[in-house]
């Protein structure tokens, strides 16, 4: 679980920096510059996928693009590294169940 530092929440540009997106269809808010993985954590979503091998829940581990544990579906495309993609207004982020599906 992560929270935003208060100095950022109360900064004069806080409202301008807000980015509206969805997590599994639910409305959520992040900050411009957040990666998708960070945006999920900021919204209390610690698990972003289940593994294809055992179905165990996983969340971001490295935040620098090397561990591939933060794979999610972004705007319909599966297996995106959430920590390497910046959250954008209107983005549809979905937690991923197992392997990337065909045509996703």
């Amino acid at each position, binding site marked *: *679980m*992560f929270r935003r*530092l208060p100095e950022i929440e109360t900064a004069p540009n806080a409202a301008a920096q807000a980015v509206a997106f969805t997590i599994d269809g639910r409305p959520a808010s992040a900050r411009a510059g957040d990666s998708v993985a960070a945006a999920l*954590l900021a919204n209390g979503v*610690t698990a972003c996928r289940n593994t294809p091998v055992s179905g165990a829940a996983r969340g971001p581990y490295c935040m620098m693009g*090397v*561990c591939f544990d933060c794979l999610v579906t972004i705007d319909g495309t599966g297996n995106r590294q959430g920590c390497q993609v910046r959250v954008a207004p209107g983005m549809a982020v979905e937690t991923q169940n197992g392997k990337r599906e065909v045509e996703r």
Partner: protein
Amino acid sequence: MSAPNPKFDFDIAVVGSGPAGLAAAALAASKGASVVLLDEQAEPGGQIYRAVTETPVRDRKVLGPDYWHGAELLGPLRDSGAVHWPGTTVWSVARPREDAGDGHRPIQIGLSRNGSAAMLTVRHVILATGALERPFPIPGWTLPGVLGAGAAQVLLKTSGLVPSGATVMAGSGPLLWLLAWQYLQAGARIDAILDTTPKQNWRAALPLLPGFLRSPYLGKGMKLMLDVRRKLTVIGNVTALRAEGDGALKSVVYTRNGTEHRLPADTLLLHQGVIPNLNLANATGCAQRWDGQQRCWRPTTDDWGATSVEGVSLAGDGAGIGGARAAEEAGRLAALDALHRLGRIGREQRDQSAVPVRTALDRALTGRAFLDTLYTPAEAFRVPADDTIVCRCEEITAGAVREAVRLGCSGPNQAKSFLRCGMGPCQGRLCGPTVTEVIAAERGVSPAEVGYYRLRPPVKPITLAELAALPKTAADIDAVFKH
């Protein structure tokens, strides 16, 4: 900085925009070479100076002066004329077999930008791929809520996020203390730091202390540690760790002086040092060796950063861990040597220009042996028990690796075909060092003898759509139709 119609031919490509890459690109371009700086992130800085241009953490005392030094590297880059391509993933570095028709065989770099792949032609490449956190395999380390300390630091730098709820930090090494100190400055909650530095490491490191007394890190490090120890609960001599929870982290179980204790935890931040991020160098064919002191593989380089592959140099932590300031100087040395190899400066000018750089590099590396020895991770955390997952992608345990050794597997590449260990999307980054150590311990030989994964491009996954976007030459089309 980027041209609207990018060209795909440069004298030098620098891969990675941390301190080594920034310094190398700026120096090489300032001497008139055409330079492109390729980096996966949206902003320059690498991991150490991640988001230095745009971090929402404006209170400079939170991240500290060492972090803000990163901003000083950006001006020289801007003024140098180097082209910076952020958001670019390099997936291959290779020298084609046929020459370009003029007797030269330039290096080809496969990269992806904005959803399409492209090939870049360069005469020299400086890999500045930096470090990643050493894998820290403990039972439960795959649970959501368990992250690397470096990962947590990235969340702080890029997004101003700090843990909320019960937070435990565990492990060993400078970054753990630095992050704890940054959290203190930021007013974040830390319930406990579980220090896994083995007692005997102090004895081993003591003879190296005189060297460290001259280190630029001494004063800073001492102050930081004292500060953290004064204000936080630090539990030393931790010999075993376990993360527990059903689908998410609930508690951390640790052993101290033979007794088990349990702490509730929503977040566990693990760290036991950093190791070179060598996948690209390895896949490029650069020879590497086992470093017994830092207990990791490192690509073999000469004192200019040149590797075993002609036209490919390495600078910074990707060639062996030395820290950010050392990386900067190593980047400059690699740039000077590249300029010399390209005929832009003479040998004498190269050597003269390198004198002050080497002095600064030596200073930055002073006392490194003390830190390496003191923070060598305990064997229990390098060679985990049978029930611990070592390969996170394929969910392979240390026990399965040992069983494969008993069946006759002598190294990581055979273990791969027995177990799929190291064949997941991370391509061995999170299991390679552990697999080497587990096999070495099981066979009773040195890690050097066991070896490492033979990696192949692409070193990051690319989609068919990205590949299909590659411009095709007549030769490419002939290769398909005439064979």
